[in-house]
């Protein structure tokens, strides 16, 4: 099986890191993975996105027109990627910043108040991890122990104390993943 996930949001919302953690976890899980960022001047203050592929076979194209899942952390990202989700796929959107819900009915749409939950955890920077938690809950892409291993790898030595709050954010995201 091949799962493609597009993660998108403002520059600074941590979509690139969220994608890297998923890719790393996939690798730890023994899957074939790739991570591909959007790059260029449009990232300056605008929206950024990355595509993560987790597959059994070697990854072909690291970019896809119709991903299995989309995680949209802000309104422009939802506008850009809602129509791209493959029928039967998954769309996670950040309810905290997106007031009008997506309209597709042929996919699984999941709302998560990522910023609000992150705020409650005392660190708005972990909103990305809340969204990642929601994605993991709905898709079973990789087991939690692989995510933990990936987080340990991704956090620099002087930031290992952030592990707990990141894990809490993922857990809260998992619990909050409600299909409206």
């Amino acid at each position, binding site marked *: 099986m091949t799962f493609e996930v597009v993660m998108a949001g403002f520059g600074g919302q941590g979509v690139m890191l969220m994608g890297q953690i998923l890719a790393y976890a996939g690798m730890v899980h023994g899957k074939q993975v790739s991570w591909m960022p959007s790059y260029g001047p449009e990232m300056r203050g605008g929206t950024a996105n990355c595509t993560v592929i987790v597959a059994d076979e070697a990854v072909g*194209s*690291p970019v896809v027109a119709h991903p299995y899942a989309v995680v949209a952390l802000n309104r422009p990202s939802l506008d850009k990627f809602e129509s791209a989700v493959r029928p039967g796929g998954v769309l996670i959107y950040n309810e905290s910043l997106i007031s009008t819900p997506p309209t597709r009915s042929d996919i699984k749409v999941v709302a998560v108040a990522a910023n609000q939950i992150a705020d409650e955890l005392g660190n708005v920077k972990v909103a990305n991890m809340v969204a990642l938690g929601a994605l993991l809950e709905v898709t079973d892409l990789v087991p939690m122990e692989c995510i933990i291993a990936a987080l340990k790898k991704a956090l620099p030595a002087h930031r290992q104390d952030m592990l707990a709050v990141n894990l809490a954010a993922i857990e809260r995201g998992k619990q909050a993943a409600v299909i409206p």
Partner: protein
Amino acid sequence: MSERVLMKGNEAIAEAAIQAGCRFFFGYPITPQNELPEYMSRRMPQVEGTFLQAESEVAAINMVYGAAGAGARVMTSSSSPGISLKQEGISYLAGAELPAVIVNIVRGGPGLGSIQPSQGAYFQAVKGGGHGDYRLLVLAPANLQEAVDLVTEAFDLADLYRNPVLILGDGLLGQMMEPVEFRKLPSRELPPKTWATTGMRHHPHKNIINSLVLDAPGLEKHILHLQEKYARMNLHEQRAKSLHCADAEVVIVAYGSTARIAKTAVMSLRQSGLKVGLFRPVTLWPFPVNTLSELVPKVKAFLTVEMNAGQMVEDVKLAVNGARPVHFYGRMGGMVPTPEEISSECVRVLGGVR
């Protein structure tokens, strides 16, 4: 390091160079390869190597010229506009027969173009680019593990043939992350660099690094010597990979990141029972004519797919030599073809041959 690590293409290439014993890097910033010199600027001091940001690509390639002449394993990297500036120096390296590794993470052109992935530099890479009758060994990885392995190869091949080697990637390979492993490849027997300009205290007679041969018969002799070397490279170094070519009616020919996209297309076409295959040149020069022409009698048509307006397709046509139709599909300017596009193009070609 032998565990699998997730790395960006640009950084994986840089680390591979360090693992291959490269201790000198001269470069100049340009997107989409910036992570490569940035990685070198962090890593080289840790291994007592030298990272220097030159004032321009022209300066960078001439620093490479000097360092290579002095016998070092040396590398530079850039992207299309910067590689154009390096062409003069590359021609000198080839003329003076110096080993060096040059990385081109190609972006859209001509001119300032864009910073998105492209394969518009094929002609420049394989047909010269700079002046004079010279050739580069051109290696085109399609995934990051291959890129890592080919970097090691590149340094060895450069030393073996005393010739610059070009790694041709693109923005996609430079920017993407994939797991890679830095494994020890079997090491080759390499000739000692008795010609290096390290000072006469190190060798019995004076060494000169030079590409000037003023008398015509002398220069002709030198060029013939180069051609003889290129013929040896052509004989020994052609490399390609093929997938599902044994019974294929249509074979897609693609290299680098286009090939991995084409692979997705081939896999899905095979699932619907269509007999298509993929032929992927790994060396662009020497072009893998031998293995490609072996396919000719078995195949009904070829479809070359590139991220340009049609460059490698000329070499495919030369190899096929009119025996079969050679079709072309290209996206350019930073547009990346999707597997679906390639599939439908392939189906169109298949329809024509049935």
